C-alpha cells in the first residue's frame, strides 16, 4: 500500500530527479546546517503568516494587537513563541553554516557567487531580526524603531527611508512591517533559490569518492528539521515569550534581541555609529573573502591571513556580545 503510494508520487512528482549523487558526508549534521536554516525559515514564514492575521502595524494599534495575539488569539501565544525561537535558531544555524563553509573554504572558484548569495542571505536575516524586534512596539520595540530613525539620519540620503520624514502618509512602523513581511522575505526566497540552484549545478564542496543519493540527504534533513520543530514547540511552552509595557517615547533603557547584542556592545563603545559600522565591516569582510583568499589550494583551515582576520572579527563579535549582555544599559542615540 505504502509502496504503491510512493511509486505513484514518484511518477507524478518526478521525485526520481532527487536521486542524484551527493557526497556521503552530507549525511552529517554539519552539512545540514544550511538546510536546517531553510527549514526554520519555512517555520518563520508559516508562523509569521498566522501572526500577520492579528497584527495591526500602526503605532496606535500595534502593541495592543500583540497583546491580543498573546492572550486571546487561538494558539497565538505558542505560535508567537515558536516564531521568536525559530528566529534565534536561524541566527545560530546560519552562523554555524557560514563558519563551517568558511573553514572548508567552499567560497573558492567556482563557488564565489554561491558564497555571496549566502552572505546576502545572512545580511537579510540580520535585517529581518532587527525589523521583527521593532514590531512588538513595546519599549524595546520602540527603541529598535528609534535606532532605525537614528541610523537613517546618520547615513543621510542612504537612510532617508528609515526616517519619519520619508513620507507623512504612513508610519515608519508600517513601512518596517512591510519590509519584514514582504520585501525581505521575497529577496530571501530569491536568494535561497539561487543558492540551491548553484549548489545543484556546481556540486557540494566535499569528497565525492563515497556517495549517497540526495533524496536520503533531504529525508534526513527533514527528519532533523521536524525534530527541531518539536523541540521549539516544547521550548515555546516552557518559556513563552513576553512583551514589555507600552513604549514611553524619548527614553532608551532596554537592550535589543540577543542576536543584536554585539551591535549594542559596539554602540556602547562608539555611540550610534556602532550600529552602522559594526554590521558594515562584518558583511563587507564576508563579501570580500573570495577575493582575498585566492589561489588553487582549498585545503580546509589554511586561509592564511584571511583566516586570522576572520578569527579576530569573530572574537571581537563574541567580546562585544558579552559586553552587550553583561554591561549596563546605556543610551546611544540621544533620545
Amino acid at each position, binding site marked *: 500500500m505504502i509502496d504503491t503510494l510512493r511509486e505513484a508520487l514518484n511518477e507524478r512528482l518526478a521525485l526520481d530527479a532527487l536521486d542524484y549523487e551527493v557526497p556521503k*558526508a552530507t549525511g552529517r549534521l554539519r552539512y545540514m546546517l544550511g538546510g536546517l536554516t531553510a527549514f526554520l525559515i519555512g517555520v518563520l514564514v508559516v508562523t509569521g503568516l498566522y501572526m500577520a492575521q492579528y497584527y495591526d502595524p500602526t503605532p496606535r494599534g500595534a502593541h495592543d494587537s500583540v497583546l491580543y495575539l498573546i*492572550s486571546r488569539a487561538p494558539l497565538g501565544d505558542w505560535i508567537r513563541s515558536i516564531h521568536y525561537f525559530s528566529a534565534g535558531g536561524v541566527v545560530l544555524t546560519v552562523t554555524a553554516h557560514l563558519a563551517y563553509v568558511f573553514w572548508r573554504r567552499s567560497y573558492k572558484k567556482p563557488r564565489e557567487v554561491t558564497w555571496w548569495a549566502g552572505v546576502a542571505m545572512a545580511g537579510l536575516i540580520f535585517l529581518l531580526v532587527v525589523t521583527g524586534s521593532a514590531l512588538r512596539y513595546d519599549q524595546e520595540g520602540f527603541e529598535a524603531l528609534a535606532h532605525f530613525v537614528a541610523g537613517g539620519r546618520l547615513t543621510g540620503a542612504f537612510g532617508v527611508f528609515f526616517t519619519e520624514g520619508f513620507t507623512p502618509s504612513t508610519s515608519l512602523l508600517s513601512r518596517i512591517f512591510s519590509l519584514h513581511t514582504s520585501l525581505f522575505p521575497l529577496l530571501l526566497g530569491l536568494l535561497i533559490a539561487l543558492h540551491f540552484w548553484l549548489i545543484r549545478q556546481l556540486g557540494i564542496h566535499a569528497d565525492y569518492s563515497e556517495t549517497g543519493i540526495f533524496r536520503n540527504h533531504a529525508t*534526513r534533513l527533514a527528519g532533523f528539521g521536524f525534530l527541531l520543530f518539536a523541540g521549539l514547540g516544547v521550548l515555546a511552552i516552557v518559556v513563552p515569550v513576553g*512583551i514589555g509595557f507600552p513604549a514611553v517615547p524619548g527614553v532608551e*533603557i532596554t537592550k535589543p534581541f540577543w542576536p543584536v547584542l554585539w551591535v549594542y556592545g559596539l554602540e556602547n563603545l562608539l555611540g550610534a555609529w556602532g550600529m552602522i559600522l559594526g554590521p558594515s565591516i562584518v558583511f563587507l569582510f564576508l563579501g570580500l573573502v573570495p577575493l582575498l583568499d585566492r589561489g588553487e589550494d582549498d585545503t580546509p583551515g589554511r586561509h592564511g591571513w584571511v583566516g586570522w582576520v576572520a578569527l579576530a572579527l569573530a572574537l571581537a563579535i563574541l567580546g562585544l556580545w558579552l559586553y552587550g549582555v553583561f554591561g549596563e544599559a546605556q543610551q546611544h542615540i540621544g533620545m
Partner: protein
Amino acid sequence: MLLFAGVLMAAVHPEAILKSTQSSVEAGRDLPLVGEEFSNGETFRLVLLGALNDYALGDVDTNDEGKFTIDLAIPANVRPGQYQLVAYAPDGDRSATMDVSVTAASPEAAEEGHDESMASGATAEEMIIQRSTTGVGWGVIGLVIGLAGGFGLALLRGTPSVEV
C-alpha cells in the same frame, strides 16, 4: 462634508449604527454616543472589547424610532488602547460596532480606580499577561509536537545511516 467630519461609524448589522463625535475618549470620562436604526423599544448591552480585557458598560434602551443618545461612561480602570464598542441585542447578536481609542485616565479620573501598573513610566520589564490557551488548544499543541517529533524520528529511522 463638515457634518460628517469627525463622526465615526461602523455597522455590523445591516441597519444598526453606533456613532460618536469622538474617535477617542479618556478613561474615566464620558463618550457621547448615538445609536440609530436599532430595533424599537429594546434593550442593548454595550461592551468594550479590547486586546486584554472586555468591559461591560451597561444597557441602553432604544426609543420608538430605534434610536438612543447617551453619554457613555468609560470606567477609569479601562486600560488605554484600541477597542471595539459593541452593542449586543437581547439574543446575543452583535447589532452594531464602532472603533474607539481609550487614552490614559487623568489623575482625577484615576482616583476612581485606574490600574497603576498601566500608567507606569518607561520600563524594560515585561508585562504580566494572562495567557489563555484552552484545553483544546493544549491538545492541538500536544498533537502538533507529537506528530512533528514522531514524523522526524520516522524519517531519520527510515533512511540509511551515514558514516560517523
